[in-house]
């Protein structure tokens, strides 16, 4: 009966949205209220609440981890890992994925209405951090009645949240899985993000972020930002294999500036399709949050100190062709976890796909995650 009651619970299911009073105290010192969170849940919460897994999404990801995206009509972004018979399985786990704070798929962000003005926040939205995203997720868990997570998992920026979780809520997390990620943004990471932000702000349609009035968004700037970022998600070898110097539907160079090369055409397509589903100001806020991210700096400069209070188990996975968050970044985390005496697993996997490997076919990654998760219930 209890299970049936939980299944009827309107808080659980796909396409959920909740408005919480907060206030959410942010790292900047500002307070956000109300806090809107859009999320999905799959599976049933166990009687004792012991099977909850929080999935954290990356910079341009969203809550549609294993269900069809309402704008693009594409399948969920992690259906290779999440689903029936997979390592994260709604038949065994209660799965939660929420749109991050600052984003644009239903959670509070710059496009949300500022209650003080009844207008969209735009650039009046407070600057947020990865830790703020995590605190917002904790608010959601409070709302869902989940005290403790069996696991928190994410890749890239999702990995940053997964790694941050046990540092802020040391007793609320039993296991953290951090994939293709880092404990801090490097100068190179920040530099690429700054290129993207400048592309958006250089678009005359950006207008200091106040483009919501007529909806004429800085699409060209956002598309360029996406194109630059997309290069960092792929490996040089992967690009060469996929496109080489092949020309796009033509036999010869045009001696002009049309997309002669397939790789140009591909990047333009990536840029154009991205602006249909993403808000330019959200891109500014979330990249800023990633640039501010430095867990050691939040703990007196010693990364190991961040993991002193938690008893969570950690699993880290990197990919050999990922040059955005290379293996060396994962090793820094592993060394800190060892120094703190935490239970940690780490493996660098081979994949030709660069940073994006974690989203693509990675059977070894699935095997590692499955074994790691099953070890939590011995």
């Amino acid at each position, binding site marked *: 009966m209890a299970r049936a009651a939980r299944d009827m619970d309107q808080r659980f299911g796909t396409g959920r949205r909740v408005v919480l009073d907060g206030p959410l105290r942010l790292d900047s010192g500002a307070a956000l209220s109300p806090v809107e969170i859009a999320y999905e849940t799959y599976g049933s919460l166990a009687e004792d609440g012991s099977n909850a897994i929080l999935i954290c999404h990356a910079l341009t990801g969203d809550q549609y981890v294993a269900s069809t995206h309402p704008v693009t009509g594409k399948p969920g972004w992690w259906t290779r890992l999440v689903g029936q018979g997979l390592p994260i399985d709604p038949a065994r786990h209660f799965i939660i994925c929420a749109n991050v704070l600052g984003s644009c798929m239903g959670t509070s962000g710059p496009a949300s209405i500022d209650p003080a003005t009844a207008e969209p926040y735009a650039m009046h939205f407070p600057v947020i951090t990865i830790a703020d995203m995590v605190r917002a997720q904790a608010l959601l868990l409070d709302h869902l009645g989940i005290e403790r997570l069996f696991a928190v998992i994410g890749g890239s920026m999702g990995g940053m949240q997964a790694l941050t979780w046990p540092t802020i809520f040391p007793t609320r997390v039993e296991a953290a899985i951090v994939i293709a990620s880092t404990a801090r943004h490097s100068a190179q990471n920040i530099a690429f993000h700054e290129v993207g932000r400048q592309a958006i702000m250089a678009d005359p349609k950006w207008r200091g972020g106040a483009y919501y009035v007529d909806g004429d968004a800085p699409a060209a700037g956002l598309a360029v930002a996406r194109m630059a970022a997309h290069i960092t998600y792929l490996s040089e070898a992967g690009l060469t294999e996929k496109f080489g110097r092949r020309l796009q539907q033509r036999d010869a160079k045009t001696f002009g500036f049309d997309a002669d090369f397939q790789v140009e055409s591909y990047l333009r397509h990536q840029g154009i399709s991205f602006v249909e589903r993403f808000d330019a100001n959200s891109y500014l806020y979330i990249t800023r949050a990633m640039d501010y991210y430095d867990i050691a700096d939040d703990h007196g400069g010693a990364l190991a100190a961040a993991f002193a209070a938690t008893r969570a188990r950690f699993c880290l996975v990197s990919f050999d062709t990922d040059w955005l968050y290379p293996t060396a970044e994962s090793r820094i985390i592993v060394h800190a976890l060892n*120094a703190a005496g935490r*239970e940690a*697993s780490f493996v660098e996997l081979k994949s030709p796909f660069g940073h994006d490997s974690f989203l693509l076919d990675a059977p070894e990654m699935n095997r590692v995650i499955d074994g790691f998760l099953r070890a939590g219930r011995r």
Partner: protein
Amino acid sequence: MSDQGSALRPDLGVIARNIATGARVLDVGCGDGSLLAALRDLKGVDARGLELNAENVAAAVARGLSVVQGDADTDLAYYPGGSFDYAILSQTLQTTRRPDQVVEALLRIGARAFVSFPNFAHWRGRMALLFGGRMPVTRLLPERWYDTPNIHHLTIDDFRALVKERGWHIENQWFLKGDRETGDANANLFAEHAVFLLKA
């Protein structure tokens, strides 16, 4: 218990039988985690591993072990002193760049260290070199000189000399011939394998 214990490689069987229940154990060069899994299942130890080969790490993590991909020569420095009851180095000593420093690190990290290695002074190897004039290729040392991962060949007497020189203490020692234990007498000639339990 003996079922799973005897499925282990003989030197690992010796180590498994001599580790206290519930101990904290770091296996350096843990391979696919066979020993750690056995120790966890049979002795309830807190089992951690370090392994260079990514496929082995993936296999070990997939069986639920806490194993980190890393190099014994460089990564032991990141473990705090005295964090384990036992540090284990099984059949890995002869593959490290600086075996002496690796053992030093084991004795810093662990209260005790198990070190097992193949004895290159076993009589078969001596015969191969003496009469054949060739580097020995045996059942236990199947690789040839150019493709062997063993870059620091040592004998039981070599190891004893190193222990003495560094002032470490041998708490116990076991010698193996095939899968059977053999006596101390002339171990350097007759043992294929040695397992030492050291203390700093």
